[in-house]
């Protein structure tokens, strides 16, 4: 597997990773629930808001992942010679786990971003700024291990590579067993962090929300 074919394969896998794993729930939360007040409906219902949002988001990811898969298959027909994928049981197994955790992580992260609409009057500017951060640090531009060292270090300190870059790279079989386990651990830690941030922000935000009489 040459470097060029591994990088091109990365970009092809990025098509499906981006559509399947990156959640966009923050738009729904910020615009529909908070700004338009639909949150009140959720607050009256006897189940967790987070669970309701998760069930709403999951079909979106499935269908977008489906479209991503179609595009990937098309690309493989035309550009098959450029793609080289070494699938082993290890890369498949760990790939699926990291992908699943990446979806959970991106979901929790985007929910927290969406909750910022409780306090920010103009949400879209902040959301676009976060969007640019994700584009740079999640590995959409190019594989993060090709970044200059300083940017690489900064990127790996953020949760973003664990949403897109690491699932793709684990799937390509480029990480050792130890590195794959380390990735999964870090993903779990970030998920825990955002779960705690979510709980805090949600409780504070709902107090403010209901206080306004929405």
């Amino acid at each position, binding site marked *: 597997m040459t470097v060029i074919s591994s990088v091109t394969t990365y970009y092809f896998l990025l098509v499906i990773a981006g559509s399947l794993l990156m959640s966009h729930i923050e738009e729904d939360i910020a615009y529909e629930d908070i700004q338009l007040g639909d949150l009140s409906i959720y607050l009256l219902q006897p189940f967790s808001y987070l669970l309701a949002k998760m069930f709403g988001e999951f079909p979106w990811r499935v269908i977008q992942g489906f479209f991503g898969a179609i595009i990937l298959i098309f690309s493989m027909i035309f550009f098959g010679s450029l793609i080289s994928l070494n699938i082993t049981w290890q890369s498949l197994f760990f790939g699926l786990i990291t992908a699943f955790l990446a979806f959970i992580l991106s979901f929790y992260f985007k929910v927290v971003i969406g909750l910022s609409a409780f306090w920010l009057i*103009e949400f*879209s*500017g902040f959301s676009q*700024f976060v969007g640019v951060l994700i584009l740079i640090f999640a590995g959409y531009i190019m594989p993060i291990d090709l970044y*200059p060292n300083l940017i690489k270090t900064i990127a790996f300190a953020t949760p973003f590579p664990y949403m897109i870059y690491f699932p793709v790279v684990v799937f390509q079989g480029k990480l050792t067993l130890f590195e794959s386990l380390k990735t999964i651990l870090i993903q779990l830690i970030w998920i825990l962090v955002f779960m705690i941030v979510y709980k805090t922000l949600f409780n504070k935000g709902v107090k403010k929300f209901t206080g306004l009489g929405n």
Partner: protein
Amino acid sequence: MKYYLKIYRQILSINLSNLLIHRANFINNIVSSMAWGIFSIISMLLLTSKTTVLYGWSRPEILLLTGAQSVLVGIFHTFFSRNFEKLSEIINRGQLDVVLTKPVDSQFLITTRYINYTSIFRIFVGIFVIYYLLINYSIPITFFSLIGFLFFLIIGLLILYNIWMLVLTITIWLTKLSNLPDFMYSFTSITRYPSEVFREVTGYVFIFLLPITIIITAPVKLLILHPNIVELITMLIIVAVFTFLSRRFWLFALKFYTSAGG
């Protein structure tokens, strides 16, 4: 002609008043447009961090290309993008009747009605990048190459306008395609890369992509004194053909427009 200039002056001032009324959006949009300008520079910096020459372009030249693309896209977003976004909305809600009954050309009105002044900051980011690179890397330009660059930048802008117009006229038939502008934004971002990148692609795809790939690279090559005459002539041919086609297509499409209400 003077009539249309007078109308355009009114459009400019109405949009300015709107801007001043909705101040919260103002800061927001400035942040967005600068963020995208800076993002395109950063992504090009990262992509060229390990190479010195790319398809015959040196690294400062490629960054110059990115800066020029920011300028072109910034001008396009300032004067035209919002109109194309609203176009599908207008057609979907049947509000095109209001436009059609006015004593002004419909294509003119729907593509110039809204101006997004905050995208001017994206133009500034681009100009700053170009200026910085020209000075710090002593890239040679002449007065005439600058004039040529500006001329072909305007031609490129017209080509881009006509491409968007051709695609978005389809919403008269397929009114539910309200996210077509999102696709066009992505499509327009191809212009960031030098046209040589697309030479690898052969056949119909290349011909299809040709107009959009050369609209920035040809003017920039002219600016830095490596003009590709073939590309420049192609641009002139394309602008003539596309302007004619998009106009005809729009007038043709209007015959199929069915309004939504009484």
